[in-house]
């Protein structure tokens, strides 16, 4: 008789509740996607704009304090308007807003790239390998599955948007040495984070919908590239031909950009800058007419609705005949 049965042993641990089951799916997906070299490379490159944002915010804080640390860079400051040099704190909110806006404008490229790398596999491979019965025969609902997959995209997009925003904001606050900075700029932070959340939800559901349409990952990637590039090209061509307000609506990225501008109120931020910098480009940013942001919101909402419909049709429960 064996002293210790090396066969099956009972397990006496405890199982957690059902609330956070989606987290296991997200965790597994993040681990799997992290193994791709492209994911790591894009994340590393996407850190440079974040670093630049943090440095600029820190530099602005030092500039507000007229810090001696800026002496080596005086040649950069000398050309600034006297009004700005005399009272930089009155330009704090516009400068912060523009910096965050530009950062998010650049990061949307990395976001699109990350979604392209991370997203196509998420559902298409589960369909290819018939993994859905394995998920749904466990205490996992369809909504848990969807949230888990969305969570994978959310983690990577947050890594290039929300996380750098919060860290850079923290750096800016630390270097400003002024307690008023929080009450003045909190809306910049909240607007940027809200934009990050909209980006995650919108791009995430859209990519998941694409991913659920085909077992072929390349085809899914092609669909995403189509939305990204062809939308932009079409918007440019239409703008040249039709010259109508609605032309940018055909571009997914333009619609995201319009929402970003509204959330950060960039138009108001450009006005004082355009006043002290008599540049045509700055004036365009401040005074040119934009199409109504509600149109872009409606486009994104429709895309979201269509994505949810596709997902609910493609990720079906097991309550059906085979």
């Amino acid at each position, binding site marked *: 008789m064996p002293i210790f049965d090396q066969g099956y042993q009972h397990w006496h641990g405890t199982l957690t509740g059902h609330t956070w089951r989606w987290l*296991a*799916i997200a965790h597994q997906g993040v681990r799997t996607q992290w193994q791709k070299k492209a994911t790591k490379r894009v994340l590393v490159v996407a850190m440079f704009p974040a670093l630049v944002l943090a440095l600029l915010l820190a530099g602005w804080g030092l500039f507000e304090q007229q810090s001696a640390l800026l002496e080596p860079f005086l040649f950069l400051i000398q050309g600034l308007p006297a009004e700005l040099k005399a009272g930089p704190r009155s330009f704090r909110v516009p400068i912060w807003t523009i910096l965050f806006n530009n950062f998010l404008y650049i990061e949307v490229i990395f976001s699109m790239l990350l979604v392209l790398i991370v997203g196509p596999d998420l559902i298409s*491979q589960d369909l290819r390998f018939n993994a*859905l019965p394995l998920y749904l*025969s466990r205490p996992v609902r369809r909504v848990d599955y969807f949230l888990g997959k969305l969570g994978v995209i959310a983690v990577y997009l947050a890594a290039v948007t929300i996380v750098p925003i919060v860290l850079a904001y923290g750096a800016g606050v630390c270097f400003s040495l002024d307690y008023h900075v929080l009450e003045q700029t909190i809306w910049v932070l909240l607007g940027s984070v809200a934009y990050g959340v909209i980006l995650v939800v919108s791009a995430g559901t859209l990519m998941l919908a694409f991913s659920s349409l085909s077992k072929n990952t390349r085809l899914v990637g092609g669909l995403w590239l189509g939305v990204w590039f062809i939308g932009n090209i079409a918007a440019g061509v239409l703008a040249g031909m039709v010259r109508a307000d609605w032309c940018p609506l055909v571009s997914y990225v333009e619609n995201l950009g319009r929402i970003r501008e509204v959330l950060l109120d960039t138009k108001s931020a450009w006005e004082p800058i355009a006043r002290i910098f008599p540049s045509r480009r700055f004036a365009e940013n401040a005074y040119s007419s934009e199409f109504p942001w509600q149109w872009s919101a409606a486009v994104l909402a429709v895309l979201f609705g269509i994505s949810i419909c596709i997902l609910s049709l493609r990720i079906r429960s097991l309550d059906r005949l085979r």
Partner: protein
Amino acid sequence: MLFQLQGVTKTYGTVTALRDLSVEVPEGAIGLLGPNGAGKTTMIRTLLGLISIDAGAGQVLGMDIRRRRLDIRQAVGFAPEDECLFPAVVGIEFVAFAGELVGMRPKDAMQRAHEVLDYVGLGEARYRKVETYSTGMKQRLKLAAAIVHDPRLLIVDEPTNGMDPAGRDELLELARDLARNKGMSLLFSSHLLPDVEAVCDHVIVLGAGRLLASGRIQELKQLHKRQYEVRVKADRERFALQLSAAGLAAEPRDDVLIVDLPDGRGPSVFWEAALAAGAQIRYMRPRQSTLEEVFLKALSEQR
């Protein structure tokens, strides 16, 4: 009680998959038999709370199948029939992930995954991508994923499909070991009667969504008091001729003769025939129905 269903009806459009199905099953190893389209998979999905039933009620491990679906799926291990895999993972990650999906903490799930992979004989392949596994290995992998959280009830749907004879025997041995030695209740769905007989002590027979038979296999396999299985040493043909001469019909089957004993005659007639034929009786007992006969009889009664 392992599970019970009361008057369960399930339809898919115009197809009635389960028709007023009522069954009570005690703990143990239960075989679920039925031809294709009998409703086996629908019954399993009903037990797991994966489908909404049209009528009826039921409990699995004391939990209501309508209200505690997620709790049931947490307490039960299920290895589906289809070939299905979590993609882009190695074997150990597959099983650990299955554990996490039922609520195990990642560290516990990983430790336990190593144990169950050793148990099902995939220890050497644990770091291989699951896409490269053979059919038999995938079946074992699904079994490992189903038992990773040590469920009270394990449901396996056609687990030996596509397996070679050696792999099939090993899988049946694992199922038998879990059910008989490890105290895990088992619902074993298969259309292969020898597989069910090798593992289970109870059986449920379904046909066209109805319950055709249910009970202990030994009790269902009826004893025929007037029909004997007899095996002799020496010339079986001569022995059979002697039995015919004595007015007994003898039918050879495998290495035995199936002999009908007329009313008023006792087993002593076999000794007399053996003496006359110069044969030695090595084996003699009243014949018992096979599971196949039970199954076919249940199906024929349905028709």
